[in-house]
């Protein structure tokens, strides 16, 4: 079954382009043999290479400690790689040699500023770029509208439910209209119903906004439901052990979860994940 996945590397990634014919082969971000060693000597990541092409929805799936969040943070520029390189082939570079990444980040927790209203939280990324409140208002309200929270602009985070806070966090990420959306287990702390609803929201926004998404998760079902490609990682040291294109057709809705194809895909990904954990156990 793994071979079936590996042999179909050209599967569709863009929901508006189900054949994948119009997709650029030039990656938007490329990790080249990247390794990361922490100050305490822990090898968080070893020899990771990954090309992510425009419009793909790539999930990094693996057990705790496999380096998936570390990989995402390196892509975000939060800390440097100990070895290897992260390239942005389609981006221009600043005079300082920094790539002009049009990225946004959604964290595992909403990480909202409790003293600021929903509006001010979503405005933050624009404010940091020097955009005034007046100039930002339309974009902030647009972003809030996309996550269905435009009526809550003047509320404080403590007045919102967990799911609503996460929606604000997503609105904050999309207000800069990024090309690449990096998401670090954003729904891990939410209840199942809210999680499924936000999964649908993310798929809709991915389709509408033309993002490239790198999504970290430890849930096989979430990875299969969302992704066009699933990168399975193993721990000690963190590394990629399988790169599996997802053959399920887009658009996907909640009904997909009850189909035989979804069950089969989940089983295959799950098998790969368990193989990686068996390897770990015998190391």
């Amino acid at each position, binding site marked *: 079954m793994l071979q079936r996945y590996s042999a179909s590397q050209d599967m569709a990634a863009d929901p508006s382009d189900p054949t994948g014919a119009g997709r650029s082969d030039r990656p938007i971000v490329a990790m080249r043999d990247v390794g990361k060693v922490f100050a305490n000597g822990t090898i968080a990541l070893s020899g990771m290479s990954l090309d992510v092409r425009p419009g793909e929805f790539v999930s990094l799936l693996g057990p705790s400690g496999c380096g998936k969040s570390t990989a995402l943070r390196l892509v975000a520029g939060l800390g440097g790689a100990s070895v290897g390189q992260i390239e942005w082939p389609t981006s221009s570079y600043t005079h300082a040699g920094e790539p002009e990444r049009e990225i946004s980040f959604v964290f595992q927790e909403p990480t909202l500023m409790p003293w*600021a209203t929903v509006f001010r939280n979503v405005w933050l990324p624009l404010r940091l770029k020097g955009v005034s409140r007046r100039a930002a208002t339309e974009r902030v309200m647009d972003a809030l509208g996309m996550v269905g929270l435009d009526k809550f602009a003047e509320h404080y985070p403590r007045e919102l439910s967990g799911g609503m806070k996460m929606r604000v966090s997503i609105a904050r990420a999309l207000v800069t209209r990024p090309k690449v959306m990096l998401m670090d287990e954003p729904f891990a702390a939410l209840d199942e119903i809210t999680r499924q609803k936000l999964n649908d929201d993310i798929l809709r926004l991915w389709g509408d906004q033309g993002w490239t998404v790198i999504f970290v998760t430890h849930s096989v079902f979430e990875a299969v439901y969302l992704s066009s490609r699933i990168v399975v990682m193993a721990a000690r040291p963190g590394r990629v052990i399988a790169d599996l294109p997802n053959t399920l057709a887009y658009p996907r809705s909640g009904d997909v979860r009850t189909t035989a194809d979804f069950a089969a895909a989940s089983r295959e990904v799950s098998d790969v994940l368990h193989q990686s954990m068996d390897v770990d156990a015998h190391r």
Partner: protein
Amino acid sequence: MALVTGFDANASGRIASLAGAIAGSERMHYAVISFLSVVSLVALWQFGSMALPSSVLPGPYRVVSALVANVLQGDIFTDIAITLGRIAAAFAIAMAVALLLGFSMALSRTAGIFFHVWIICGITIPALVTILTLYMVVGLNDTAAVLGAAAPVIPVLAINIREGVKGIDTRLIGMARAFRAGRRQQIVSVMAPQVAPMLLASTRFGIGLVWKMVLFVELLGRGSGVGYKIEFFYQMFNMTEVLAYALSFVFVMLFIEVAILGTIERRIFRWKRN
């Protein structure tokens, strides 16, 4: 299987009015308990004064009458102004040094280890010894009085500030960095608002400690101010004036605490209110 799909608008209205009624009764409850608290405190004082000779513990009526007479006469304001000036100077010095120590100890491990011993010594040396030493070293003047009032407060405030800075949510700093915030932007947008509640709490705490120290230094080595007057009337065995002067300053400090700091707190920390 029955599915509830409708929403009763009347029920929503009823809940809103119930919530309003509960909030109203909460406020009433707070006001009644606070009033009873003040009444019981005055009653305790009254009972105490009835049990002891009035030269030892005069009653509330007698003390308040003396205070009113002092206010009408006007001399008391000079002493209050002098003491307030010393409090302001001592607090400014204590807060500035404590901020420097607290922040450096929280942000630098080396500074944390280095100043730890200083802080422990500062806490364990009795305030009386610090004040007397400063009077000997600097001289019996206002500079020594202000430094003497500030010095014993610094270690306690520094520990308070250190713990507050350590409590900063680093996830928010990570978030700001992920959105490409520079160092200055991180401090202004994410760190300062987190530190603000702790700074206000430290201000309250610091002023409360400093004012007691200022009375102490005035009592030990100054010829003016509320502390000096309390000492003077104590030597005269005039407990009514001792308590009247003390009460005058309690009112001044209550004004600073409730009217000034309380208002600032309500304005800045609106987001915390339920």
